[in-house]
């Protein structure tokens, strides 16, 4: 009877390989997927340009994309350092907020009492506009101190990270926990081998949201005043002077920073969780 049983794994291996061979090449696949978005982007730019020219819309209402592009290049030496200054605030706040959020989640998941006490507030605060605290933070830390903006960003990031992480730590498959129980595993072992890995996808979906939120939070809190080197300050000043092409140029930088930050988190996610559903199509 051992012969057919030996054949089975070999057959299964063969099936897996066949499936792999059937997949189309990855590059062509990707290009095909992004083509509609690229076409839409180009069409939108052309439409914008022609509409502004055709209806003779004033530059201070809506500058033409070509003008924005020219100004963008001319102002690069100002916008890019401003962007980096703001990015540093966003990053600092992101790191502080995520770390504290994850730690709070660990405490919350571990002690039921902390959970009962904290979660209602966490959920409540999560739906309040935290940027509104910006003037207060400016007052506490000093208007030009990057810490004022970092603390706003940290508070913005803290709650989604914490709430998601708590979910990931507690919503664990009952069978996975019973298995550990049958091994008489310690609570630390369960945390390390079951709860934490289970929470990783939740954590990363929170970090992806937090990455864009942190750039938005930093820029918007700069509207309430800040260092002259900051991107948010630059945008509000140029807009006040009716230099809208410059403001648009700075917005492009903000946009690139937000997307770039998001993509970096996405990349880290793929490296950290090669097993996850969201990564499967790429690994297969």
């Amino acid at each position: 009877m051992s012969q057919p049983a030996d054949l089975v794994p070999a057959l299964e291996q063969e099936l897996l390989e066949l499936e792999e061979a059937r997949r189309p090449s990855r590059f062509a696949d990707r290009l095909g997927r992004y083509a509609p978005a690229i076409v839409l982007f180009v069409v939108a730019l052309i439409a914008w340009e022609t509409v502004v020219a055709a209806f003779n819309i004033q530059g201070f209402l809506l500058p033409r994309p070509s003008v924005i592009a020219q100004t963008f290049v001319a102002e690069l030496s100002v916008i890019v350092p401003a962007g980096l200054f703001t990015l540093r605030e966003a990053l600092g706040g992101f790191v502080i907020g995520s770390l504290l959020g994850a730690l709070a989640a660990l405490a919350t998941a571990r002690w039921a009492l902390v959970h009962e006490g904290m979660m209602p507030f966490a959920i409540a605060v999560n739906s309040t506009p935290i940027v509104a605290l910006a003037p207060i933070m400016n007052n506490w830390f000093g208007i030009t101190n990057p810490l004022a903006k970092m603390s706003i960003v940290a508070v913005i990031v803290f709650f989604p990270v914490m709430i998601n992480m708590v979910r990931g730590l507690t919503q664990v498959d009952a069978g996975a926990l019973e298995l550990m129980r049958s091994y008489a595993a310690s609570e630390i072992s369960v945390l390390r081998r079951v709860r934490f890995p289970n929470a990783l996808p939740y954590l990363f979906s929170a970090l992806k949201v937090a990455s864009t939120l942190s750039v938005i939070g930093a820029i918007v809190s700069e509207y309430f005043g800040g260092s002259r080197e900051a991107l948010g300050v630059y945008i509000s000043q140029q807009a006040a002077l009716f230099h809208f092409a410059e403001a648009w140029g700075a917005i492009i930088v903000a946009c690139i920073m937000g997307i770039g930050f998001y993509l970096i988190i996405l990349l880290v996610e793929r490296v950290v969780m090669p097993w996850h559903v969201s990564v499967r199509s790429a690994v297969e």
Partner: protein
Amino acid sequence: MNEAQPVVAIRGVSKTYNERGDNRVKALDDINLSISSGEFVSLLGPSGCGKSTLLRVIGDLTPPSAGSVQVNGKSAHQARLDRDYGMVFQQATLYDWRSVGKNVQLPLEVMAYPKAKQELRTRDMLRLVQLEEFSRHYPWQLSGGMQQRVAIARALAFEPAILLMDEPFGALDEMTRERMQMELLRIWSQTQTTVVFVTHSIPEAVFLSNRVVVMSARPGRIAGMINIDLPRPRAFETREDPRFFAKVTEVREVLRREETQVRS
């Protein structure tokens, strides 16, 4: 069979869920059962007969309301702490974030085996279930039957005294199921582990077991025990043997007798 010192001794075990609530459910009523070393015992019965509950009581995942379970002369609780149980559930319950090899290695990590021993045992176990070349695959890349083989390898990795299996092949198709039954018998004969196997399939229980414990529902009681003295090793031909059919009929009779009694 070693009658003097049973591996599992269940005496007067009852289990009532929601004991203090309004909707009390009596799942088990006065169960007495001894299982000897190296025996393959099936708990068979309709759904709701408490067979899974009994398995969970043996494995100290659910406390009994009354009675005692002794495992190798210890309480079930102590036996769990001593890591005497290997568990296999209906779902393979493999951890998504671990490769097949790392899943098998999981109990060895938890139990702090030396690193070299961990790797050696993992390799041996994967060889035992014939999945060596899938060590680096992730669970989702495997079929249902392969996943369940990994779960069996994981359950046996730390050489537990007893293998507790709760409808492990219940989610598999008929063909895979029969192949897995063969696999399990081969593994059982190689490891000499005591197996308690929960199922609601009569042919499955008869094909695998030394002894079939037939249970009846509401409250869960033992309706009868049938020794299955079919020759071993059992193979494909066993299922076509008239003695196999005779045993299947015998078990079915016990189940039917119980049912008519309950109705009348």
